[in-house]
């Protein structure tokens, strides 16, 4: 369906792999990763392309129909750093290598115990041979699983303190999607890993479809007065829909509009808010380091905030128990 573009990207990725990556792997004695290195280069090449397209579409939109006008865009800089780390493939590749052995151990363990992780097409045989349909089915299921991960992250004090890094941004733009705490990312990866054991990994032969979904997520954070209309807002997460999730009142343990790509899960599970509102974004409880610090300050701030919140929660539960005791005795 996108063959000419895909071939150009393969050739670029192959050229980089052959001329830069393979010699490096060879030099350092890491050739066991040679087969995967081509896939990594594909991730990088598609990632750069997707970033350029996202920028080319979102920047004019933000310039033409901004919700807020900022005197300084300095607070956006760390968000750009988060985006490049995540989208150009640095974070995915590094985390793949870091967790490779864990993944091997878990998969080996379940196989040894007689469980071979199925794919969606082996669970629903008519899907085999219809990769686009399969991809869409995976996209829906994984989006649903992500809805629950996100909703749960808002329900636990310590977990939300990590996720507050995503909410802390007061100058929310299309760069803000990947602004996450590394530990929160790690929980997300484990969450996905468990789902993958149950239904397998989605087919990866449609990187452009995947890019489109990531684009929707970027656009949903854009500082642009844009809704997709009554029906459109119910089909795909729009900037208006996701901005309500980032509103000051929605930052915390009671929130709405948790969906990342499809609003349908919010509609089904009763958390959708389609109001025509453009609230200011941010989280008043987040320490300033998580709001306006640099990348490292935000990560460290997230850790201390989460630790403080967990201790506060513990103290609160203890106090509640103490109060309950005289009543019961």
């Amino acid at each position, binding site marked *: 369906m996108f063959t000419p573009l895909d071939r150009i990207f393969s050739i670029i990725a192959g050229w980089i792999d052959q001329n830069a990556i393979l010699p490096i792997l060879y030099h350092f004695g890491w*050739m066991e990763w*040679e087969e995967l290195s081509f896939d990594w280069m594909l991730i990088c090449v598609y990632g750069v392309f997707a970033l350029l397209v996202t920028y080319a579409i979102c920047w004019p939109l933000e310039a033409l129909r901004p919700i807020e006008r900022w005197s300084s865009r300095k607070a956006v800089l760390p968000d750009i750093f988060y985006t490049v780390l995540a989208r150009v493939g640095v974070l995915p590749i590094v985390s793949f290598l870091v967790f490779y052995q864990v993944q091997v151990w878990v998969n080996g363990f379940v196989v040894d115990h007689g469980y071979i992780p199925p794919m969606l097409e082996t669970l629903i045989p008519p899907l085999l041979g219809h990769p686009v349909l399969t991809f869409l089915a995976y996209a829906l299921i994984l989006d649903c699983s992500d809805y629950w991960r996100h909703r749960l992250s808002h329900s636990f004090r310590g977990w939300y303190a990590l996720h507050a890094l995503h909410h802390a941004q007061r100058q929310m733009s299309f760069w803000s999607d990947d602004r996450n705490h590394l530990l929160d990312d790690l929980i997300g990866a484990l969450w996905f890993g468990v789902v993958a054991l149950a239904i*397998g990994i989605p087919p990866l032969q449609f990187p452009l479809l995947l890019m489109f979904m990531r684009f929707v997520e970027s656009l949903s954070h854009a500082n642009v007065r844009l809704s997709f209309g009554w029906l459109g807002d119910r089909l795909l997460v729009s900037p208006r829909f996701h901005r309500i999730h980032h509103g000051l009142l929605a930052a915390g343990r009671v929130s709405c509009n948790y969906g990342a790509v499809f609003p349908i899960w919010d509609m089904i599970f009763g958390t959708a808010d389609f109001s025509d509102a453009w609230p200011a974004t941010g989280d008043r409880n987040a320490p300033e380091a998580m709001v306006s610090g640099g990348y490292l300050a935000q990560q460290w701030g997230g850790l201390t905030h989460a630790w403080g919140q967990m201790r506060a929660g513990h103290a609160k539960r203890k106090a509640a128990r103490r109060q309950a005791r005289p009543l019961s005795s």
Partner: protein
Amino acid sequence: MPVLDRRGFLTQAGISTAALAGGLRPGRAAHAAALRPMAFVMNSGAANVSVIDMTTRKVLRTLPTLREPSHWALPPDRSRLLVCDAGGNALFYFDPETGQEMGHRVMADPYQIGYSPDGRYFLANALRLNFVEIYRASDFHLIKRLSVGGMPSHLDFSPDSRVSFHSMQQSGTLVAIDLARAEPRWTAKIGKVPAGVLYHNGKVLCCVMGANYVAVLDPASGEIVGRIHTGIGPHNLFLTPDRKTLYVTNRVGGTLVALDPATLAVRRTYPLHASGPDDLAVAPDGKLWIALRFREQVAVLDPVSGHYDTIDVGRSPHGIFLNTMLARPGLVTAEML
């Protein structure tokens, strides 16, 4: 275990003893000569197999797999082509004569597969999950799952079917497995990232991809008795059906090297221009069909002139099977073409 068959009936993975004794079904060789010549290309990055008409060089059809088809094996009765899909945890069956789907079965992470020459054993290397599985070929009964090193990659057998040889990409070893006892016989440390393995002229050849040579080993002891320098990062090796040329692909160098199979001296080097040459197969006209990983193409190379044409396939073409091989008597494996 019955096999899930997309045509709606159950088949067994059995091989008739008559076929084993004769190597070919009666009349099959004559029949194979009248076949439409087709190439099967396993597109690892596209989760499908391209079936190409070798005469017109047009893609006839694209057969779906699950995630990542890589390599193939042909059972001794040649009734079907087996294609492994490690990412999809499955083994796919195709009709090598017609290019039609014949169903699939679940298998954990099969990356490289092969039948022992006597047809008794079917072996699968699980590169990702670090084990080697030994199956009874007649009914796919799992005899043993062995952990003998990290990242088992390529495999081959001794001609008497007593021993299989497996390269361990991560451990840097070559492991010989005694098939009757289902236990390792020896483990040889041969260098960084060993890859393609071939039993040849009473020796085992193993490409050492993290270095610039092919190691020559004594199959009885696992002792290294020689090294052939072929170029940087040798990946796999293939013997032509006339047994007159041994080809080696160099992954880092991006080249194809022709060796004299008797002396193992380098005869000629073909540059393939950063195209990521992977598996290859030899057509009856002597041309080499080579999967070009980075180009989404198959090259058809004339080894005399060194020129090649290309055919567009799917992303990351990996293994390649030509059904013209069905007309040849004897053993057909991915390395002994």
